[in-house]
């Protein structure tokens, strides 16, 4: 059996690795972005000089040959699903028995005037980095449009090279369509404290052409203000990179529609990662989740299904993480920007204002639902188990030290957090003191 995987990102590569673990199929991975798998999440660190491209590659180059995974650097231009062949830009047509589409995303463009000028770019592919690099010398100001996770990374990148940055954010607070208001405020303040010019409630109207096809500034929608700049970063989200498949027999919506076995409407064709849209999303989750972790889980699940071990895709309890300049962020479970009535939340913030813990729990039965952490690290498995087991918030608080994951000698805040709860709920809970790896393992193995 010849399995061809289009896309060498985390999802496609995970499928390839698992196919090899599970059997003896011939495996080919095609990508026109890079020769070898690299970590897209590390793009910013290349630009900032923390790492080189080879440092971001999770496997050494010999790995692929040793595991008999063929890599092909080429662009797939067409797919004939009937004859099961791929048309390629550089090489001969390639036939497959099973096909995995792991095409990833592309940066959104919302039809802004000037969006296709020179010196305008997103941040998704390696080639975007090359563009940024090309225009960074003597850059006087960059304007970033969109305030999600990629926008703040781009801001930090320019900032690291002492290039002034203006960020246009549509929302009234940074990322407050995802973060609860308090956290959004902490991050907004943090961005400003780093001398990044953050403009909230601000949309882009147009990008100005300098007359030679280069961007030289932007005009905002609300105030019609003109901001001069030498580069415009478009980071208003991403969407599945499937434009070229829209008119094929493949069932597509925003993404490539797949069932819970990650199969598309065409037999033997699978779609995973950023480009896949679940026809029946898991309750409370979105049909497309463009994050690293789900791509990895889908990649593994798809490999099983291709090898005829039917497994439904089940990503488990939601988790994610990010870093907002210097503030680390972790989330486990349901923490919503606009929570339903029955979600109570315990929110604690330290004196510096840059660390916070939010624990969401059910108002009626006190079951813990989620954790939202800024500047503090909690242990994933412990939080997950509490959520899964519907542990009451009070039990969680008493045992909160088990979740502690900050480095040794760091200050601990568990009792302060408990006191916050005690004050609002009129209780007198105290930490039971259980901490340390042995206790954690006891809890996890119980």
């Amino acid at each position: 059996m010849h399995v061809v995987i289009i896309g060498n990102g985390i999802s496609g590569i995970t499928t390839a690795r698992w196919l090899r673990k599970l059997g003896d199929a011939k495996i080919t991975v095609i990508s026109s972005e890079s020769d070898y798998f690299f970590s897209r999440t590390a793009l910013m660190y290349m630009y900032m000089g923390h790492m080189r491209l080879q440092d971001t590659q999770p496997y050494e180059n010999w790995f692929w040959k040793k595991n008999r995974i063929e890599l092909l650097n080429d662009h797939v231009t067409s797919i004939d699903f009937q004859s099961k062949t791929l048309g390629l830009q550089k090489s001969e047509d390639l036939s497959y028995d099973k096909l995995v589409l792991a095409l990833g995303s592309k940066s959104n463009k919302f039809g802004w005037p000037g969006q296709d000028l020179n010196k305008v770019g997103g941040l998704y592919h390696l080639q975007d980095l090359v563009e940024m690099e090309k225009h960074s010398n003597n850059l006087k100001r960059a304007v970033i449009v969109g305030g999600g996770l990629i926008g703040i990374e781009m801001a930090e990148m320019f900032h690291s090279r002492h290039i002034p940055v203006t960020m246009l954010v549509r929302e009234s607070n940074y990322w407050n369509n995802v973060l609860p208001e308090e956290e959004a405020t902490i991050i907004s303040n943090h961005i400003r404290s780093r001398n990044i010019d953050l403009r909230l409630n601000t949309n882009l109207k147009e990008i100005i052409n300098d007359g030679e096809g280069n961007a030289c500034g932007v005009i905002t929608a609300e105030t019609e203000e003109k901001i001069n700049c030498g580069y415009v970063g478009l980071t208003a989200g991403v969407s599945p990179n499937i434009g070229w498949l829209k008119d094929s027999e493949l069932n597509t919506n925003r993404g490539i529609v797949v069932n819970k076995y990650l199969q598309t409407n065409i037999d033997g064709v699978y779609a995973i990662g950023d480009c896949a849209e679940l026809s029946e999303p898991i309750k409370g989750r979105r049909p497309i989740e463009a994050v690293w972790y789900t791509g990895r889980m889908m990649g593994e699940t798809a490999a099983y299904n291709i090898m005829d071990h039917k497994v439904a895709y089940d990503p488990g309890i939601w988790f994610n993480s990010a870093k907002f300049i210097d503030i680390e962020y972790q989330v486990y479970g349901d923490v919503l920007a606009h929570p339903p009535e029955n979600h109570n939340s315990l929110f604690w913030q330290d004196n510096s204002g840059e660390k916070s813990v939010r624990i969401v729990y059910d108002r009626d039965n006190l079951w813990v639902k989620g954790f939202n952490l800024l500047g503090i690290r909690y242990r994933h498995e412990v939080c997950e188990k509490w959520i899964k087991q519907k542990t009451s918030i009070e039990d969680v608080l008493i045992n909160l030290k088990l979740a502690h994951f900050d480095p040794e000698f760091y200050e601990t805040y568990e009792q302060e957090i408990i006191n916050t709860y005690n004050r609002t709920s009129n209780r007198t809970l105290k930490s039971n003191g259980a901490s340390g790896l042995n206790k954690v393992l006891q809890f996890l193995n119980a």
Partner: protein
Amino acid sequence: MNQVYKSLSIANPEPLNLSLAQKIYSAIGIIGLGILLIAATGLNLPNPSSCLFISLILISIGVIGFAYQTFKTQSPGIKNNGIWFSSAMSRGLMGWGLGIFITGFYVLLYWYPSVLGLGTDGNSNTGLISFFDPLSFLLKGSAASEWFVYGTLYTLAIIIFGIRFIWKYRHNKYQVLRTLSVMFFQLGFAFLIPEFMQKLNYPYNDMKNMWPLNYYFFDEWNIKSFLSTGNVGLLMLILGVAMIFVISPILTYLYGKRWYCSWVCGCGGLAETAGDPFRHLSDKSLKAWQFERWSIHLVLVFSFVMTAGVIFSFFHNNPTGYWLNKSTFMIIIAVLLIALIYAFSRPQLFKNKLDLKAIKIFISIAAASLVIMLINFFTGSGNAFFIDFYSLRSTYGFLIGAAFSGVVGVGFYPLMGSRVWCRFGCPMAGLLGIQQKIFSRFRITTNGNQCISCGNCSTYCEMGIDVRSYAQKGQDIIRASCVGCGVCAAVCPRGVLRLENGSKDIYEKGLDIRNDHVKLIG
């Protein structure tokens, strides 16, 4: 062409310009260094003691001021900005220049101290070494030796670059505390106390410097110097032996080898402070790891064989009349080796996982030593091994003690990263590493599935451990070479890694691959 985007052929970004203040501090530091270099040429400077003082102060101001200027404009947090764009820190021209300069200094220090001005045949010192005479008289009442000059510069480097390091990691308490610790041990235990002790006619002894790192600990002259200075000397001898056999294994059991390698040791201290700007240059490839496992354990065996030989000849030359003599000593060593071979052939005895390759390395090395030793003994030679132990001892001193630990170990910082010696050569690290791997409670745990495979941890691991390869599988890291510097955990942008001690479950947890999502098929 810049290495960062080599495959994309992009020009090097403009180097970040130094601020005026940074330029001034650089100039101050260079003037300080210049004074030392002038002194080294043998030119007579007026009032040498003030000149020395001024020079050392200028160097310190230069380094600390430069670091302050660099980090004060940056908010606390990980800021490895531009490291791979810097010529000095990415094996560029500056890096090579620096490497050659330091290597050259070590070559002169070890083999041509007279070039540095060491007075031979009773002549007084000249040049650089005489420049340090006033300080030496002040501390220990005698003229400087090349080792005094070296010790002073070494200690100064740990302190001023330690201050730089603390500034850089000021948001991280673990990093701050352990750096204060190495600064303290270097200044007190390695520098001041031994010099004072010598002034008081006690043996010169750096108490934290254990065998086998301190390879002359069991040398006849060293033992005799302990024994000839009464109770204090005897106490030091006993402490030294207790460190090796009792204190160190206990601490390693409790906290891993980090208690020594990144909290106490002087070599580690220099690597962590002056070597910090080069930590990312360590080779992370599988090949490098395979090489490392052989090289470090071979050095360990070499030092073991050499020491056994030294002690054997000690007994040979000084018949004791006690139960402890050259025959019983031989028996003890033989029993020890047999026990080791036995233990390694039954890895299930150990708490932690050992892979087959490591076991093979250990068994073959131990068996070879045993055979060689027994042949020697029964042929009745005065040597413990085929080679005359004096030449063995001096070969070790030359190859390992000088060439490896000094010339390569420090001189190659800008080329191979800051822990070349600790990783490939240090017998102490080898010994503690075996203990760490077999019975320590120390490991680095990974936080569930949070790893994004970015590679920061592997890049900044000075020991060249591919931390990411474990983290992305959700596997705990239990590696003999890990010195527990904690930098992988500090640079991880997703809070995935934690250095921990815990007695339970280390074996299963080390094997457990938590990122296997579909737990279906065995």
